[in-house]
Every structure is written in C-alpha cells, then in structure tokens.
C-alpha cells in the first residue's frame, strides 16, 4: 500500500489549540475506556454461550433399575448411569470380613467415610445400603480413569480395585489406600434396594435429599 507521489499530504501535525492537549488526552482515555467496557459486554454472550445447555435436564428423573439376579458372589456388573461406569458387586463373606480387618483399615485415608462421597445410608463400614451389595461410581478420584476390579482369588480373598493410570488402589468398598495419589474414596451413587435382586440407581430411599452433584469429587 503505497501512496501516489502526486497525492497531497496533510500538514505534519494537526493544530492543537492552546491548552487543548490535556483535554484531548482526557477525552481519548475516556473513549478508549468506554470502548473496552463495551467490548467486554459484547464478549459476555459469546463466552456464556460456551457453557452450552448444561442445565436443561434439571429435574428429570434419570434413575435406572438393574436386575442383579444373575450376579454370583464375588462378581461385579458394570452399568452406565449419567454416562458414568457404575460397579455393582455381590460381596462374599470373606470380602465383607476384609473391610473390618485392622491391618487394612489403618492403611486407608478415610476408613470411616467422613468425607462426603456417598449418601447417608451408605456412610457405614461397608459403604452400601446392604452389606452384601456394593455400588460404586467407577471413576478414580485422582484423574478420572476407570479402576479395574481384581476379583477375589484363593491368594487374596478380599478383592480390590487398582487404577491403571497412576496406580491408585481402593479396597472393595471403594476406600482409597494412603500410599497412592488418589485423594478420596470412590463415590457411591444414590441407591434403593427394590428387592433382593433389583437395584435402583439414581434414587436413595434412605437419603432422599442426596444429590450426586454435592459430593466432594467425582
């Protein structure tokens, strides 16, 4: 972009009336400031639209009913609730006994589930509504990988969870071990036992006010 040689050029500086320079500086500052405020106001709807539609499903019942009749002691079933993997375990007497073993309990960060990671009716030694059935959200509280389930074996009858990403360990009730990076126990979703073989995930009869959004960390 070059100017033609024969085009006239304006006088080098525009004339400034005596004492007018400061007034012009104030005006410039005010205008630039007002422009910045306007730009920020304009940016708001655009940035806000990035929040998307997260509140639209509010108030809808998204609970699911699961038939666990086929589940044998020691096995676990994985279902999806709100897009999360949910582990449903049927615990053996050995698994239940391991939850109270002093040797294990002293190696846990939060053995008594003091931190809000479960509804009130699962704030107990077995972290579930009934001791034989355990329900956990299978998302590691470290950085969100899905821990893998080690089924009870003749060598280790208690069973456990270990996270493949950074080696965090959880006992079969989802309680986190101290010597690994994950800070909290695995979350427990709201659960209602409809019968001995049917579980409803998403509603808690024992703690109806519980919201999964209120827990410490998912």
């Amino acid at each position: 972009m070059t100017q033609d040689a024969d085009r006239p050029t304006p006088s080098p500086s525009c004339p400034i009336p005596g004492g007018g320079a400061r007034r012009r500086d104030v005006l410039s500052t005010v205008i630039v400031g007002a422009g910045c405020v306007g730009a920020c106001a304009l940016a708001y709807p655009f940035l806000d639209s990035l929040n998307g539609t997260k509140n639209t499903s509010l108030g809808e019942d998204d609970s699911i009913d699961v038939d666990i009749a086929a589940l044998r002691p020691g096995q676990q079933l994985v279902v999806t609730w709100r897009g999360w993997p949910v582990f449903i375990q049927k615990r053996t007497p050995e698994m239940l006994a391991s939850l109270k073993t002093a040797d294990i309990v002293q190696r846990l960060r939060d053995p008594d589930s003091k931190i809000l990671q479960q509804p009130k009716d699962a704030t107990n030694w077995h972290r579930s509504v009934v001791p034989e059935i355990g329900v956990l959200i299978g998302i590691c509280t470290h950085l969100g990988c899905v821990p893998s389930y080690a089924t009870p074996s003749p060598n280790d009858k208690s069973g456990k969870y270990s996270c493949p990403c950074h080696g965090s360990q959880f006992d079969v009730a989802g309680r986190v071990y101290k010597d690994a990076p994950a800070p909290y126990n695995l979350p427990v979703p709201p659960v209602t036992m409809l019968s001995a073989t049917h579980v409803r995930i998403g509603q808690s009869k024992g703690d109806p006010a519980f919201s999964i959004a209120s827990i410490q960390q998912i």
Partner: protein
Amino acid sequence: MSKPDNTPAGWLEARLPIISAFRREYVDFAMPRNLTYLWNFGAFATIALALLIVSGIFLALNYTPSVAEAFNSIETIDRHVSSGWLVRAIHMGGVSMLFAALYVHMARSLYYGSYKAPRELLWLTGLGLFILVMIAAFAGYILPWGQMSYWGATVVINAMNAVPLIGPALASWLLGGEGLGSVALHRIYVLHFVTAFSIIGVIVLHVAALHVVGSNNPTGVEPKTSADVVPFHPYYTTKDGLGLCLFLMVYAALIFFAPDLLTLANNYAMANPLVTPGDITPEWYFAPFYAILRAVPSKLGGLILTAGSLVVLFAVPWLDRSPVRSARYRPVLRWALLALFAAFIALGVAGMHKPTGLWLALSRISVAYYYAYFLILLPFLPRVEITRPEPATLRGEGA
C-alpha cells in the same frame, strides 16, 4: 530506519515495519477534508461483518448440519444454550445491518461517481464483495432448515438448473447426487463459512485499492494541496467513531426491541418437502432481485434479467462517459439517479407483495427504468447534459 532505535518498537520496526505502516495508512493517511457521514458506511459494513463472523463461529459450535438435527439444533440454541438467543439475534440482525450498510455504501458510490477512474478496481472488488455477501446470506438462510429455508433453496437450485450449459453441473455439485437433503445441507454449511472467510480476503483487496487511489469526496474533485486534506486520525477516526455509535444503537435496538421485525414466522416451522407455505416472501435484502425474477413472464428471461441487474453494475465505470464525477454538478443525472434509487426501493417493496395488478406493473416499470438508467442514460446523457462548474479546491467545502 534512519536512526537505530533500542526500544521494543524499534526492534520490531527494523524487522517488520507494521507500526510505521499502520501510522502511514491509518493515522497520517491523507483524507479529503469534506467527507460527509455517507463515507461512514464502509466502516459500518466492516464492523457488521466482524460481528457476523464472531457470532457465526459461536453458532457453529452448537449447530448440526443434518436434515434430522439442523432445525432442532437451532431451537436448542434459541431456547437452551446460555445466551444462545442473543448470539443468534446478533447474527440474524447483523445480516440486515450489513446489507443496509452495503446498499447505502453502493448508492453513495453511484451518486458521487466513486467508481470512475482511477477507482474502477475499488468498485469491482466492492461488487465482488457484494456478491459474496449475497451467496453467504443465501447459504446461511438455508441452515436453520425451516420452511422458508427449504423452499428458498429449492427455488434457487431449480433456477441454477435452468441456466444453460453450466447450470445443471453447478446444481449437481452443490446437491451431491441426491435431492435437497443432508448431503446438500452439509455442503451449504461449508459454503456458508468458506464464503464468509473469503469475504475477509476480498475486503483486504478492497481496502488496499482504496489506500492506493485514496477516498473520493462529495465534489468528486481530487484534492490537490495539503489544505485540501486532513490526516485520518483524529479527524475521521472520530467521525467514523460517532457514526459507529449510532449504527450500533440501531443494531442493538433491532436485536433487543424488534428481533422478529425482519424475520419470517414461516421459518420457525421445520422444513416440510410436502407442503409449500402459502405466502413465500424473501428476506428484505433480496426482495428487489426477487421482484425482477417475477416481473418477467419467462423462466430463462427472468433469470437473465435478475443476474443481469448485477452484471450491469460491473460495467458501470465504462458505461458512464461523463468526465464529471459527482452528481452534484450533473443536474439531469442527479434526478435520474434519485429515480433509480426510487425504482430499486419500489422493486424491494413489490418483492414483498404478491405479483399481481399494481405491484406487477410497478415491478415492470422499475425493471425497465433500472436497465434504461445503466444502458441508455449513463452512456448517452453526457452528450446533452450541461454540467455545473466543479470547484477548483476543496477548501470551503464541508469539514
């Protein structure tokens, strides 16, 4: 470059002289001293386009280009996405504001002879921009997949098919084998934003050409001395800034107080290939061309006259034989041009009504005058018109 400079600005300047280029083109740049507010509309169009592009990017994040999902995704944007209604209103209002600014900008160029030598390329790149904007607007209007989207697209694609030789091939490339369905919608979506970004590139050419030949002015007389010109800053930054505030106020009023003023309720019903809505009307900015299409009782003839109404504009720098630029000093052309503007507006109004009786007659008279202006008055009027004397200098003019 004469004295080495150790400041960060000097370091940058020695490697990439953008600061001095900016100063030369936007601070010290010589502007005629007598520009009126009609010279603000290029800046208005640029700002409207910038807002369209930004809001378009944010709409694209929530839009799904498929026949099954397009309409619902627009409804979701309007009803559920946080501030989505506002982003969409900015986008839809922006189209009207852009076209309004462009029409005034072009009318001003016609009136003050801004298309004449040496500014022919400015006029041609500007017309290229106008056609790109029309393509982007048409493609964008199809995306919500409402009834007007669908039937507007159907009519235009059938019109393309009627163009001899190239028409069927073009239509086939757009539709991708099947009828107007998901494949076509996806292509129209891509066409919409590719055109939008191309517009930015052509604006760069348009502005570069402007900065070579300089702005025209209401007298049409080139500035000759330094007394005829003023630096762009602060004189026209403030003039553009004040105009821009008013422009944005109108824009905001349109968005917040009358978001439905310029939209058609029919387009909030999902596209239905089995039922054509009873009253098809185009968006206001396409109405004049739509009126031309309906004024001609022949399929190919209507298409030729509609396309020709744009093509003839490209020839304007060579059709106009008068050495006098500004209509201020051309007493006959001045009224002829105002009549052209009236004819174009009449076409626009006629385009929004059913093509019967008076409206059809008005359309036909207006089309005839539109062509007569460009093909008869522009080349032959200078032979008989006695022009008024032009001023020798811009001093004492405006400013």
